[in-house]
């Protein structure tokens, strides 16, 4: 039973090794990737069922008891996020396989992509499951080092340039992370999250606040919260569509997850947490206004991603059960929708040969399928009923109004305003790219690049994978009731860390 918790980490790591060793056999690589990710979906689904029924599943690695040993734990929140992440990574893998088949045919294998992609999945899973700060750090590093490779693979000049900013910023935040772990250990002599929860409370107020703020900065860089977001719109748009999609969907959300986990379990706040509310408001506005100024489709989506990180910070800032329910719903919705939008942007780019909105046109007539695939997630992102974004946003608005303090009211107004800005940004894409004159595809600007653009051919697997994700977001809206139920129970667990602590520390305390 407990071994099931370790599988989402072990399986992709083992598969990555095999995939690297047998890199010459393209079909083998593809099959093993798909099989492993499908297995993780099943495993995560089962974990979600079990954790929702009977409480957290804990694995003490090697049988060493909690505060000293390594703890891997799945509770409702991590199991739910595991399921969503696994579905998204599976769909993106299909898309990327489809893209490669279209461009190079069946025989040519890519030695680095598949292993690195699987390592990335392992890192993301471990980040959700890690029960102590140091393993969280290791998870971040597994995830980041594979993302460095993915973002600079097939190095062209622009990719090296973008990769440098990304690597340096991430590396600096990792070094701060180690520093923070050292400080936390020096103060409390433990890194186990459950144990920290009890011990941090005994620290002097100033020290606790300093450690908490350092943690917000470390995870804030990863989550792209303003003003620590500057690296994201520069580095994401240069990577190939599937890579950007999985980065946009998952990597920033892992930062948010770590932020939620540590700020609820280790540090507790007064209700509501004004600092986080202010950061949330700034993040929302800077992101949305930045998006409106962009002509590059991918850069615009990146800025919108930053903007919507603000919503999740808002829920955390309100700091009650309804707020956290809203965050969880929003994370689930946003992982699927943001990944879908980047995949669709990949399809658009292949069709038009450009990412500049000013040079697109008439896609609605030329490629109606892409128009449908874009419209649904775009409306969902803007929070138009009855899509998944609306459900999540409604929960956030309810918590903001219910919080009953004026900073919360101001930020709630900000949420509504940002939604309108998002809708406007999406409408802008729609009028520029999908309406108007049909334009001939532009020639490939950089033929050496891995992205083959302007050919107009996107194969069935690519469209199908995008379709799967669009359907997933519709399914989220359809099953909003049960999902909100799980989220609320997860949020309740977060607010009262007792179940988590008892599950980890067991008889030790």
């Amino acid at each position, binding site marked *: 039973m407990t071994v099931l918790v370790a599988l989402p980490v072990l399986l992709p790591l083992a598969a990555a090794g095999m995939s690297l060793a047998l890199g010459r056999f393209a079909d083998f690589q593809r099959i093993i990737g798909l099989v492993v990710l499908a297995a993780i979906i099943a495993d995560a689904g089962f974990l979600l069922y079990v954790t929702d029924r009977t409480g957290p599943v804990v694995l003490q690695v090697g049988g060493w008891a909690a505060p*000293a040993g390594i703890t891997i734990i799945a509770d409702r929140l991590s199991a739910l996020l595991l399921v969503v992440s696994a579905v998204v990574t599976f769909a993106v893998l299909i898309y990327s396989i489809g893209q490669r088949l279209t461009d190079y045919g069946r025989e040519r294998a890519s030695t680095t992509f598949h292993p690195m992609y699987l390592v990335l999945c392992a890192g993301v899973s471990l980040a959700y499951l890690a029960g102590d700060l*140091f393993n969280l*750090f*290791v998870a971040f*590093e597994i995830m980041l*080092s594979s993302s*460095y*490779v993915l973002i*600079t693979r097939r*190095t*062209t*000049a622009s990719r*090296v*340039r973008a*990769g*440098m*900013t990304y*690597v*340096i910023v991430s*590396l*600096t935040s*990792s*070094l701060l992370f*180690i*520093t923070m*772990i*050292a*400080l936390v*250990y*020096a103060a409390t*002599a433990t*890194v186990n999250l459950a144990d920290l929860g009890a011990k941090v409370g005994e620290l002097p107020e100033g020290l606790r606040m300093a450690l908490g703020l350092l943690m917000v900065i470390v995870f804030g860089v990863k989550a792209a919260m303003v003003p620590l977001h*500057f*690296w994201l*719109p*520069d580095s994401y748009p240069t990577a190939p569509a599937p890579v950007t999609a999985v980065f946009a969907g998952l990597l920033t959300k892992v930062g948010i997850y770590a932020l939620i986990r540590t700020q609820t379990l280790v540090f507790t706040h007064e209700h509501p947490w004004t600092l986080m509310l202010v950061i949330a408001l700034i993040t929302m506005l800077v992101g949305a206004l930045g998006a409106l100024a962009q002509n590059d489709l991918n*850069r615009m989506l990146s800025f919108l991603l930053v903007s919507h990180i603000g919503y999740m910070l808002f829920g955390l800032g309100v700091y009650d059960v309804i707020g956290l329910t809203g965050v969880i719903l929003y994370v689930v919705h946003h992982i699927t929708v943001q990944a879908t939008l980047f995949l669709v942007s990949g399809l658009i780019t292949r069709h038009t040969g450009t990412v500049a909105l000013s040079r697109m046109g008439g896609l609605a007539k030329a490629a109606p399928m892409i128009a449908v695939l874009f419209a649904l997630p775009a409306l969902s992102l803007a929070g138009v009923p009855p899509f998944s974004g609306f459900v999540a946003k409604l929960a956030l608005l309810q918590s903001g109004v219910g919080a009953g303090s004026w900073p919360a009211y101001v930020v709630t107004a900000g949420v509504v305003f940002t939604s309108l800005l998002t809708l406007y940004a999406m409408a802008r894409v729609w009028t520029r790219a999908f309406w108007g004159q049909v334009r001939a595809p532009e020639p490939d600007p950089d033929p050496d690049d891995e992205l083959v653009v302007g050919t107009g051919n996107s194969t069935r697997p690519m469209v199908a994978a995008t379709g799967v994700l669009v359907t997933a977001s519709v399914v989220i809206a359809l099953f909003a009731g049960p999902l909100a139920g799980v989220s609320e129970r997860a949020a309740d667990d977060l607010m009262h860390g007792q179940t988590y602590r008892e599950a980890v520390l067991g008889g030790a305390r």
Partner: protein
Amino acid sequence: MTVNLTMAVVLAALYSAGFYLIMQRSLMRILIGTVLVGHGANLMLQLAGGPPGRAPILGDATPEQMTDPLPQAMALTAIVITFALTTFLLALAYRSWVLLGHDEVRDDVEDRRIRRLERRLAESEDESQEEELEREATQ
């Protein structure tokens, strides 16, 4: 918990020199900067375990005399990770050297776009004035 003064000074030197280097434009300097800060962070992990003592082997010393082994295990992992990333940065610097002829970290795209926009605006103002003058002269 008490910390050795020498160690505190060493830590301060490593962190400040490292972060100074990270602020530079050349990727090689940034790399050396991350190595320095990485060393500083690992040293700090070590120091977090308290003053040095006997090896943590049962039967060799009483638990009170032992060093805390946990930060050492963590530092070991962190060293390996920093080492790997240093290698990756080296490769990236080399690649940048091959492709671009330098290893400078450029300004971000947005900054450059805004600067270009400003320059173009200034130029177009000049040009439109010149054009008007020309038109007046030809008429």
